[in-house]
């Protein structure tokens, strides 16, 4: 393959934008904007109060500066806090979606037409600030599983929202979660009743289209006793030369023996690979509470985009015998910066956690793993296993590992393994000398390195995730 072809094929193929009439708030943030947002969404008073409380808290907070990131100053008054494609009437089904929008999602590989839908995956589609609708509603309804937009959930299940919103990630948890709590406009809500195994994978596809909009989605997943659900989110954005802010909050609650598997394939626009201009700033707070005994929450993420990623999907292991898992591949190329990892907070007895983190950095990017394993004094007999591997491609990029370990009792065990390697010319030469083409060789080395993480992904997405990683790296190798 010629160099030009490789470059062309590795360009960000989701970088187009959609011409569509939108309704949008003026730029900037104040109490009136929040009241207007809440009014527009016809929210109950408790939610308006939640937002205002968060806003006031946010005003007193400062952006975190401890991460290994160079973050340019963000002007929060130059961001639009509500932007939505104009929809004349409420849609009865996704088939009524504007053809222009429908085309957008076809190009993204998320067909929302009835005939072409991904089999066995129910998708909620979010475009800028609003949800366009959810596929496979009927199948889900029959099982009693709820997958809907946050707005719809506020309308239909206000008591659940009031009880659980902010229960895992408190309003004042951090600067970005406070901002999100004040201004979130959309997101997904999942509810799995007692004893139910969700009949299919649930998924949300997020698309930022607007140039000046921030995206602040809010996701809440509740898994009742003895239930199981697997949820996947995907995200892309057009290539603009300005930055867009994405500050999401995801909260998961698992009751007794419930299991939630949450997977992410993050492919936001990462900015121009040569100049670093543009790209999404991705500041995300994700946390799960293993509230019940023997409950389990598992995070799997493939982070392959965004100019800046600041993200630590975490588990509060409250219930005795509960299990937390974090499997991550973070890839940085061009001028990307990522500071990502997890927190495993062991509170219950005999709780277990596993962390497998694979960082790949290329070009002039910077990639850090930051992780906290904390075992409380009462969490007797707990165990953690952490494995952190970094792979460097070329020699101008950097990889860092910041593990924090606090163990509060003598009956617990913590294991930490770390390695740094270079995807060497030697490895490539070895495979090539056996007749394997360079491109396939890169693909093989990468998938070998990420195998422990990719195999945790739902089957439908594992192949996609691997392809994405290989595509992203093609022009960085050799």
């Amino acid at each position, binding site marked *: 393959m010629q160099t030009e072809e490789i470059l062309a094929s590795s360009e960000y193929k989701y970088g187009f934008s959609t011409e569509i009439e939108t309704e949008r708030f003026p730029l900037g943030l104040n109490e009136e904007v929040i009241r207007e947002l809440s009014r527009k969404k016809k929210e109950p008073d408790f939610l308006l109060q939640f937002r205002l409380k968060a806003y006031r808290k946010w005003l007193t907070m400062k952006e975190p500066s401890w991460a290994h990131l160079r973050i340019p100053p963000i002007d929060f008054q130059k961001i639009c806090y509500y932007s939505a494609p104009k929809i004349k009437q409420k849609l009865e089904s996704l088939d009524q979606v504007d053809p222009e929008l429908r085309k957008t999602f076809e190009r993204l590989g998320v067909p929302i037409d009835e005939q072409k839908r991904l089999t066995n995956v129910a998708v909620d589609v979010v475009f800028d600030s609003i949800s366009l609708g959810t596929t496979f509603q009927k199948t889900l309804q029959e099982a009693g599983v709820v997958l809907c937009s946050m707005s719809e959930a506020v309308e239909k299940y206000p008591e659940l929202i009031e009880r659980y919103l902010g229960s895992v990630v408190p309003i004042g948890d951090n600067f970005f979660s406070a901002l999100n709590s004040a201004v979130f406009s959309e997101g997904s809500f999942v509810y799995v009743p007692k004893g139910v195994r969700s009949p299919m994978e649930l998924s949300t596809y997020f698309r930022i289209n607007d140039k000046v909009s921030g995206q602040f989605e809010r996701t809440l997943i509740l898994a009742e006793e003895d239930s199981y659900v697997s949820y996947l989110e995907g995200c892309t954005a057009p290539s603009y030369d300005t930055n867009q802010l994405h500050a999401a909050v995801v909260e998961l609650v698992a009751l007794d023996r419930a299991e939630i598997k949450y997977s992410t394939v993050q492919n936001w626009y990462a900015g121009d690979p040569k100049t670093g201009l543009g790209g999404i700033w991705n500041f995300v707070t994700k946390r799960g509470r293993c509230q019940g005994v023997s409950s389990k929450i598992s995070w799997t993420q493939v982070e392959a985009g965004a100019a800046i990623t600041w993200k630590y999907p975490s588990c509060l292991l409250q219930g005795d015998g509960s299990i937390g898992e974090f499997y991550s591949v973070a890839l940085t190329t061009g001028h990307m910066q990522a500071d990502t990892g997890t927190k495993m907070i062991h509170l219950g007895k005999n709780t277990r956690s596993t962390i497998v983190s694979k960082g790949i950095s290329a070009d002039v990017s910077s990639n850090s793993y930051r992780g906290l394993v904390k075992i409380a004094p009462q969490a007797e007999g707990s165990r953690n296993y952490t494995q952190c591997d970094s792979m460097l491609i070329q020699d101008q990029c950097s990889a860092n590992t910041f593990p924090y370990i606090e163990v509060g009792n003598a009956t617990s065990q913590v294991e930490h393994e770390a390695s740094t390697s270079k995807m060497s010319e*030697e490895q490539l*030469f070895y495979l*090539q000398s056996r*007749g394997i*083409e360079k491109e396939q060789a890169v693909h*093989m080395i990468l998938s*070998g*390195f990420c195998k422990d993480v990719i195999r945790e992904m739902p089957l439908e997405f594992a192949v996609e995730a691997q392809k994405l990683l290989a595509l992203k790296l093609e022009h960085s190798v050799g």
Partner: protein
Amino acid sequence: MLEIVNLVVAKEGRVILKGVDLRIGSGEIHAMMGPNGAGKSTLAKILAGDASYEVLEGDILLQGQSLMGLEPEERAHLGLFLGFQYPVEIPGISNTQFLLAALNAKRAFQGKDPLEEEAFSLLLQEKMYNVQVKEEFRHRNINEGFSGGEKKRNEILQMAVLEPLVAILDETDSGLDIDAMKIVAAGVNQFMTADKSLLLITHYQRLLSYIHPHMVHVLVDGRIVRTGDASLAMELEERGYDELLCVKDGVCN
């Protein structure tokens, strides 16, 4: 079969090979010997197409076709094989997966249909039996956690599966105990037929007790300074490079 003409090779501005000529015919085994730093491994890697070296002059021909400018995988497709002195570890990819990909790449080049996993499994079983490697080699990741000897035997297994026309084995004997060496030698001897060629790069004579070369070359400081039959290897073993080549005084007999 393999012809090297006045090969001059540099790395990072330093000239390592200073004009090497070599011709290996079908059915022939040649041994390349020489002290450390003579350029033996460079020769092996440059033949296989290692791009970190620069060819300043000369040509390499395989069956009359120049290999200059060809990628390593293209050379492999044409029938070249390099057994590495230090095979690298590649985590997460099983030997089976790797060998099937390699074999099918070659078959695609030859215009043959890819081998299915089942058929390949049988082929692999036969080859593994022939070169006496353990069943577990199949599932283990490429060279990961292999001992030195296991890595070398894995190279021989790869050679047996890929069936090249010309094999270059770079110090395949180093790090092997006597039993392992016998097994490797048996594998090599099995590989050798009238239509194949072999270049054995070795520091010591001992492998040559099991694999009998038609010709022995001595490489010193980037040049072939002596060429002879198998007895040259014996002579080297007895007298050492220095004495044989009078390198110390700079006067050669």
